[in-house]
């Protein structure tokens, strides 16, 4: 990677040796129910507040992923985590319970992509042997921070998305089994002047389009090199916008594009444009997609978690919504 370029190609390739994904009850009624490692019976996870619940869910995902990798906390050199709450408390408070050096991250809903990229770089630098990457989100904590109280009788607008209650963690290692991270494209912040905080798919689609187009151009690949190009949480409308943006660059991904936000819920669940949240891509990737790799149904995927970098304050002050997307190429070893 030189100045002006965005794509890193890993000569030595880190393996994703284990993953674990937990979701809430609504997600557990969706089309991916059978793939999730754990579905909570209720949103509170036996805790006193939703924030504590999100934290517990996040911690469980990390602990179980490490356990599944056959490791102990002390084997993991670093934990890279993020979530959507102010001061990323779900991540930091999970790390408080763990004996693992912690690096907190924030890239909104694309944080899981950021974690995978940084984790891979740390491993390939030779300075670390094993790292864990995780993110979480919770419908009730996000609603409260970004929107209205839960019991307020408001209607969702047609373009709104439903924040996923879920958490996912991947354990990366230089040796072991599992698919490998072969390359990654670090996204730039792209703002296409969308101001409607209830239309995040449209706000994030340009960032995803630029990252995907840059990735394919810098590696001289066609979109069909990948079995699937999987975005994080563009939802139905955002996905449509992504297709149109890429078509204007001569890239057609209509055939092999999937979106975690569209996969996790179905139309009967009244989630409008689909799921969103930092836990959306991580819970789907660590369960459904890792399973697809295991069953040899996928050989190559470009995983592109997407994020909207807004806050309640920025929206109130009339700012438009900047988007970000990172691409991680994952292939069979």
């Amino acid at each position: 990677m030189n100045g002006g370029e965005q794509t890193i190609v890993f000569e030595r390739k880190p393996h994703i040796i284990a993953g674990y994904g937990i979701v809430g009850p609504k997600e557990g009624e969706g089309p991916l129910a059978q793939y999730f490692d754990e579905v909570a019976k209720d949103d509170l996870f036996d805790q006193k507040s939703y924030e504590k619940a999100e934290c517990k869910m996040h911690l469980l995902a990390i602990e179980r992923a490490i356990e599944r990798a056959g490791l102990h906390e002390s084997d993991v050199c670093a934990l890279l985590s993020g979530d959507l709450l102010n001061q990323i408390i779900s991540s930091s408070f999970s790390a408080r319970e763990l004996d693992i050096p912690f690096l907190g991250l924030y890239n909104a809903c694309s944080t899981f992509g950021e974690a995978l990229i940084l984790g891979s770089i740390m491993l390939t630098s030779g300075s670390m042997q094993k790292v864990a990457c995780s993110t979480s989100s919770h419908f009730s904590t996000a609603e409260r921070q970004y929107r209205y109280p839960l019991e307020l009788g408001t209607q969702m607008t047609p373009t709104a998305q439903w924040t996923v209650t879920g958490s996912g963690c991947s354990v990366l290692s230089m040796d072991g089994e599992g698919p490998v991270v072969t390359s990654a494209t670090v996204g730039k912040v792209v703002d296409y002047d969308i101001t409607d905080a209830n239309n995040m798919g449209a706000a994030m689609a340009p960032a995803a389009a630029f990252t995907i187009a840059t990735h394919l151009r810098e590696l001289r690949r066609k979109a069909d090199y990948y079995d699937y190009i999987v975005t994080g949480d563009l939802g139905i409308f955002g996905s449509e916008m992504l297709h149109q943006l890429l078509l204007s660059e001569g890239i057609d991904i209509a055939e092999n594009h999937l979106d975690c936000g569209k996969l996790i819920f179905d139309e009967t669940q009244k989630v409008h444009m689909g799921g969103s949240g930092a836990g959306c891509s991580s819970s789907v990737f660590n369960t459904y997609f890792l399973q697809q790799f295991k069953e040899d149904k996928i050989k190559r995927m470009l995983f592109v978690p997407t994020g909207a970098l807004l806050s309640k304050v920025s929206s109130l002050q009339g700012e438009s919504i900047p988007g970000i997307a990172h691409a991680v190429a994952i292939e069979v070893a």
Partner: protein
Amino acid sequence: MIQKEEYVELVKKTTPKSKELKTLPIAFAVGGLICCIGQAFRLIYSTFLPIGKVTAGSLTSVTMIFIGSLLTGVGIYDKIGKVAGAGSIVPITGFANSVVSPAMEFNREGVVLGVMSKMFVVAGPVIVSGVVASIVIALVYYIVGLF
């Protein structure tokens, strides 16, 4: 790649809109029903209680606020709101919902800095504009009365 201005236009043109043909009648029906219930209370109060029309009206408001708060507390009002939209937001029961829901939500942050300070985060603007409007109207009323 499609340029910014073109994209904003594209999004504006293709964004799915609210299906007003479906949502407006429901809002009208639910909003109307809430008002009918209020009217029924008012009739009952003024007929069966030894109070005047004005007191019966105040008592009706109190009753409707109580019902709105109760339905919020047991987690029903937000479900009505999802279907009815403005139909259940505009009547006084919606106002009760907008005060009680943040009070419940912020209960975990304590009574003073949680419930008390956050209780009016949603209803605050309504109260402020109501007070301002009443002052303006009182002034107009006063000035007109001078002549």
